[in-house]
């Protein structure tokens, strides 16, 4: 017979909803520290290295932001879709397709355009590529109610094999024609290089931040955003109000895919400079979901969260040099995701005491 029960919390205070993910991350960090210690590494050393590599110098910060750029976009992609309970796990694949389409356009256009329109078209192509690919899952979901989790996941694998095929399995336009012994991706014409801001940081980060701010503002201030919020909150109320839910689902899938596709374009035109599968398949889609979950699907919160997660990722190579294997980072990511998910428990429920036979008990609920 327990003397404590749980009940639903009416509304969590604002500071609470910010604190819970932070505490979750700290808990995950502690657990990870435990694992590290078990593996024979010094957790403090590890964390110090991570902080230094992420934020320890101007170069470190710009490197972190370089990593964060595509992550902001995939994070926004996931957050947007998840808010409508559309489980778009296909960010990976949509990013790849964005890279394929945008670089394909670049190869086709060559040097024929000046930089500004060239880059503009490149980004648009990336967004459209990713968006259309997402519709392959979005339309069935909207029209037949097909399970989008399975669809988007399968499409990830298809896209993965596609980009590998383009470079390693064939002599397509995406393969670098120069080196034939060891295949690699083709370089984009220089005109498509994203202009740099500082060190390796290019304007891609502005694209990401801009998308986040615009998206956040649009959800609160536009009619489209209002409908989006109602549909995300209550399908019943949306139907009652005569909102076109099917159309919104399709539009949201497109936008979500477009954001991921944009990430792909920003990668090939920015830090990669070429259509290089090995530089694309670094799990940005899943990391984007991680970012979205920590940010509790708030578009504005995705921005700092992406920087944080990027900071964790960017220290990977450094850590390897002190002997911590690369997969450890993935383990940490998984742990963070689990703790963040678990943290939702504390924002939704609280504890209260209940009666036990023959024992005097308080009557108020005890808030946690």
């Amino acid at each position, binding site marked *: 017979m327990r003397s404590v029960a749980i009940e639903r919390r009416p509304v969590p205070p604002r500071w609470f909803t910010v604190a819970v993910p932070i505490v979750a991350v700290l808990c995950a960090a502690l657990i990870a520290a435990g694992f590290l210690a078990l593996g024979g590494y010094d957790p403090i050393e590890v964390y110090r290295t991570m902080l230094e590599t992420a934020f320890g110098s101007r170069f470190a910060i710009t490197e972190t932001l370089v990593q964060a750029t595509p992550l902001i976009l995939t994070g926004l992609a996931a957050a947007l879709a998840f808010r409508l309970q559309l489980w778009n796990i296909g960010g990976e694949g949509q990013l790849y397709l964005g890279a394929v389409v945008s670089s394909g356009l670049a190869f086709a256009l060559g040097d024929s355009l000046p930089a500004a329109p060239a880059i503009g078209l490149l980004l648009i192509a990336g967004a459209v590529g990713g968006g259309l690919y997402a519709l392959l899952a979005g339309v069935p979901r909207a029209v037949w109610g097909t399970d989008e989790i399975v669809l988007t996941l399968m499409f990830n694998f298809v896209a993965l094999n596609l980009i590998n095929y383009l470079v390693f399995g064939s002599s397509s336009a995406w393969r670098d024609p120069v080196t034939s012994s060891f295949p690699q991706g083709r370089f984009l014409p220089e005109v498509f290089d994203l202009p740099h801001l500082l060190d390796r940081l290019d304007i891609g980060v502005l694209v990401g931040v801009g998308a986040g701010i615009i998206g956040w503002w649009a959800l609160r201030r536009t009619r489209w955003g209002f409908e989006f*919020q109602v549909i995300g909150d209550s399908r019943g109320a949306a139907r*009652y109000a*005569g909102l076109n839910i099917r159309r919104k689902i399709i539009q949201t899938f497109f936008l979500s895919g477009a954001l991921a596709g944009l990430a792909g374009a920003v990668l090939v035109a920015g830090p990669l400079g070429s259509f290089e599968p090995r530089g694309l398949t670094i799990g940005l889609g899943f990391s984007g979901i991680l970012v979205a979950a920590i940010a509790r699907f708030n578009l504005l919160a995705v921005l700092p969260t992406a920087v944080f997660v990027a900071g964790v990722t960017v220290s990977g190579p450094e850590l390897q040099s002190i002997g911590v294997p690369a997969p450890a980072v993935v383990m940490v990511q998984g742990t963070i995701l689990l703790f963040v998910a678990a943290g939702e428990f504390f924002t939704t429920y609280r504890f209260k005491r209940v009666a036990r036979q023959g024992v005097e008990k308080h009557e108020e609920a005890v808030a946690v």
Partner: protein
Amino acid sequence: MHIACNVAKMAESTSESAVEAGPQAATGVISATDGRPHGSPLAAEMASISKSFYGTMAIDAVDFDLRWGEVHALLGENGAGKTSLCSVLAGLYRPDDGEVSVDGQPVSFSSPRDALAAGVGMVYQEFRLVESFTVAENVALGDPTAAIRLRRRRLERKVADLAKSFGIDVHPGRRVGQLSVGERQRVEILKLLHRDVRILILDEPTAVLTPQESDDLLRTLRQMADEGRAIVIISHKLGEIQSVSDRITVLRDGRRVGQVDTATSDRRSLARLMIGREFQLPERRDTGRSRKPGLSVRDLRAHSDDGTEALRGVSFELARGEILGVAGVAGNGQRELAETIAGVRAATGGEIVMAEQSLDVTNLPVVDRTDLGLAYVPDDRKGVGVSPGLPIADNLVLKSYVHPPFSRGPLLATREVNAHAQTLTERFDIRGVRSGMPVRLLSGGNLQKVVLAREISGQPKILVASYPTRGLDLGAVAAVRSILLEQAQAGTGILLMSEDLDELLALSDRLIVLYGGRVVGEFDAHEVDVDHIGLLMAGHDADEASA
């Protein structure tokens, strides 16, 4: 400490005894009919029970006792705590404080399972039946004495036998999802009898029945009590309580305010106990209707969610300023009728015409119908009527946000939206609102006011109100009724659906009866024969009824 029916012993001694209706041997919980004594003359005793939700007290130090062989009524208005108290006894909720004993033994149920094992079972207002399972499967569900192997035919035969022995009419092989409301209630009762429940609790059981079905049920309950069981019936209907119960306990605002022997009780004092003061609900005063044409519905057809035909040619006329009540047992097409007229559900035939402008709106989208002056208050206020996570301001423009002044082009004009919310909150006296707070935190009555405020603020010509007072406490019921009456006065034609025949009679000018997706009767509210309506509600032919 539980009282556990010695279930294992039962299973051993009579291996297929799962369905035998005879008395069971269990520690203390024994029927009087087999001659063996009870552990105590009290079937159950609840002492100083308290329970709160979200920090508000639902029940506050309530005492309640139940004798074997009695029908004990729990009276109170919506929100008085009747359901919560019984849910504690049935093991669904754990009390924050207080003690419960069954048949003289203290118990502490941590789940409905424990309560069932102790012989306590409850039939809730929303039935707890798995729709995709058959009747027999639902009856067998969770029964610890059932055999491991499910043998369908044998199970169905047993359930049929059990049903017959109690005079309950239901077919064990049918899927619950296809049953009518009355039939489902019978399945719920059958479930409990199958588990040999000695203490039966029923929560507002006659709310979903026709007058005749109600009489049958009450008679069955009386019979079960006479056979030695203890029955608790929760209700807010004074008439039927007085006809069937031995004692009445009255709850108000979570506290017990009185307990009387039914024989010596009178309605007025009961009502006063229940409400706390002299109270009169607003009623329709005949004020000479305008007779201006409002809504014409001709041969309307529509499907329900599972694809069956819910509306099979509904026709009626609704005048401006008139309140037309729709009587009928839930499940005969009321919800589909409301949704089809409002535009939330597609019509498959027939037409809906806004008579004043002679405009056929049958295939118009919701937005257009709203613009033409057709408003809809749905029966599910929390799940459909509002967007629960959004603030009140957003909810008040849920349909009108596309129009200026609430939006300028693609942008929302938040200042106007908020000002609008402020105005309506004051005008309709909506309480409990804090800026930016999700609207689901409002009480039922205030939530309904939000819905009404939104629907009415556009001066609609026609208002479809679907069960608008369901689940509200009397103060809120009065407020809603006033609002509806005012609107009718102002010239709105109101189509009112309610399961409370008294309410329909009190508010409507005319009544139609809906059965099986058709209108089977039409009456002027002042010349009505309740029995006649009851028969129509149950599907008896109009001719047959007057025979």
